[in-house]
């Protein structure tokens, strides 16, 4: 591999990894606080991408402004889905949660199929081909923006949890829901809020990804897998670790494509996943607890 190729794979892996990390931060949040496994996570991302497409293509909005509408809308959708469906399985075992969220995912996919048909769509922006050179590597402006906003959102979530009163309540619920409720914290309210935040995070990611990738009803599944691999890699409940995990997966994808032909190129991230499960099931960065 030439140095130019290496530099390109490095830059691209880090940038796309940031977006992966934002998607994974939603998973890590629901898993860490509520112990809820949400297999519809990527499908919510798909919904956010379609929402962005509607705002941009039909209402002529700039996609980077659309974020400010898509994220709150997704927050609302998250709260609604939580209230109607998911709150009933928060304390149930993981298999039950997996079944329900897989069902929600299928429902979202088929609704998208009915509304938008299976046609593949794209979101065009004025910045679509904007770029600059960083040494030998090309940096696309859309993916750079996606990276920066993703990191900013993840840092914002981190600060919210660490520095605010609400964050303290969330952490209390994460540590022990019943003790938290004894101290007057409304656990149901916190759970609803956390799920809303997690879906708002994919809302942001969806709005940023829409101009980079293509939009179709099944686009979410790829990202669900990626998010869960990152969470296993990083351990739950740690945004900084999720960021590092996301970048690791971004890098293994971009170097995989460069070094390994065809479909086998995704083997690097799965290999990483398998090794972590075998040797550090608590996550790469978490301290093992007794």
């Amino acid at each position: 591999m030439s140095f130019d190729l290496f530099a390109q794979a490095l830059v691209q892996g880090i940038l796309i990894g940031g977006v992966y990390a934002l998607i994974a931060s939603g998973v890590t949040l629901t898993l860490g606080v509520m112990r809820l496994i949400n297999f519809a996570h990527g499908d919510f991302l798909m919904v956010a991408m379609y929402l962005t497409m509607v705002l941009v293509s039909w209402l002529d909005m700039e996609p980077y402004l659309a974020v400010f509408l898509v994220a709150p809308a997704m927050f609302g959708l998250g709260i609604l889905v939580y209230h109607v469906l998911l709150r009933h399985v928060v304390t149930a075992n993981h298999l039950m949660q997996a079944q329900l969220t897989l069902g929600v995912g299928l429902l979202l996919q088929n609704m998208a199929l009915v509304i938008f048909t299976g046609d593949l769509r794209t979101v065009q922006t004025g910045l679509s081909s904007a770029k600059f050179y960083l040494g030998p590597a090309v940096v696309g402006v859309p993916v750079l923006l996606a990276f920066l906003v993703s990191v900013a959102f993840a840092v914002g979530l981190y600060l919210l949890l660490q520095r605010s009163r609400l964050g303290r309540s969330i952490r209390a619920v994460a540590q022990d829901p019943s003790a938290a409720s004894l101290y007057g914290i409304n656990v149901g309210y916190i759970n609803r809020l956390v799920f809303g935040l997690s879906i708002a995070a994919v809302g942001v990611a969806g709005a940023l990804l829409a101009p980079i990738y293509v939009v179709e009803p099944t686009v979410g599944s790829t990202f669900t897998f990626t998010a869960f691999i990152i969470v296993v890699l990083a351990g739950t409940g740690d945004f900084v670790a999720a960021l590092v995990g996301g970048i690791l997966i971004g890098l293994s994808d971009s170097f995989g494509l460069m070094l390994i032909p065809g479909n086998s190129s995704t083997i690097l991230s799965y290999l990483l996943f398998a090794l972590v499960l075998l040797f550090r099931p608590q996550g790469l960065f978490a301290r093992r607890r007794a």
Partner: protein
Amino acid sequence: MSSFGLAAIHRHHAVPVAITLGIVITLAACTEAGSSSAPTIRPSAVAAPSQTAAPQNVDAIKIGWPLELTGSLSATGEGYRSGGDLAAEEINARGGIAKWGGATLELVYADAQSKPEVASGELQRLIEQEGVIGVIGPVGSSNAIPSSQVAERLQTPYLNLSASAETFVERGLTWIYSQTVTSKEYGYAYVDVMDDLAKRKGLDTSSVVLVWEDQDMGTGMSERVRERIEEKGYQLSADISYPRTQPDLTSIAARVKEARPTVIINPAYLGDFVVLRRALDQLDVNVQMIGPATSYSHPSLPEKLGALADGLIGLAQWSADSPQGKSVAERYAQKYGRPMNVDAAIGYQGVMTYALALELADVLTPTGLANGLQALDVPPGEDLVLAHSGIRFVQVDNGSWRNAAAGLLATQYQDGALVTIWPSDYATTEPVVATGE
């Protein structure tokens, strides 16, 4: 690392285990119907359709068509049906099938629901209960493969319009008639278009890069591209495969760029093509690209890619402005009030092929129809709307029959409009060659 107390969950490893389990379940659920094996069909208690001669003066001759009218392939299925309906209407309007006393041609549709088992079941029902003497196969390869086996067992002619894998006609099934081009014609045509543009338009072929999606379609076509490249005395400066569902193909684009391409040949689906095209543009690679029309000449491409669509060359079986496609495109637009697409044209041709074969059938039975198909030699003309030089079925290794005269044309986006540029006797506009500037 800043963990902040949420990590309490790591008491046991239940979560990673559950996640792994969930991923496995999802993967299994997401695996497309395509990989499901052929449905088991009960050992037939039903005898093959009667082979005795039917009465010679019939009112209607029925052709069965289990087609994807709902499900993931419904858009394509509807396209085929609209073309097929137009053909049947025209045939009947000009007096039906002359050989059989002006009998009308009746298409009996069934909804294959984009599912292999439904396609096979409906095909069986059409033959056994609806009295059809021939069938046209469903659109999707995964539906066509098992259902064609049912037609074989029930000894009824099966016309394949869309399954383009060369293996489709290499299964030794003798009742299959494949009208469509295969990956061989595609693979060869990529190189032939390039060769022609090099000779006539000075296309720089000093560095040809083959970059292909690594599923059946791309693998089959790229194999034939390599073969033809060698035959024609060219060389590939890079041969790169990629997975079609990757959200980011910048690494692939960087590898293409490193080979300093002057021409890119790219068997691709629409989604991966759009992602790759954008990535190449990011890396300032804007040379001549050639691909299949389903992605490279997609009607919505100018909207999806803007100016990046200009200059792309796509290989297709039909185009609306070609000499053989023009008239039917006008009649179609008149009937439906929307432009004809290639799916409709293929459906139209399928029904037309059966009508022509019926004129040559010796008896009005599946066997008679098969004899008609084998005797068929359709020259270019009014009855041939596709870019084939004819329809002549030849038998592959004493098994299935394929159209030996199937061919392709090339279309190009020029200033946002799709025009036919190759071969020269079909071309309506001169090709414009991308210079890489």
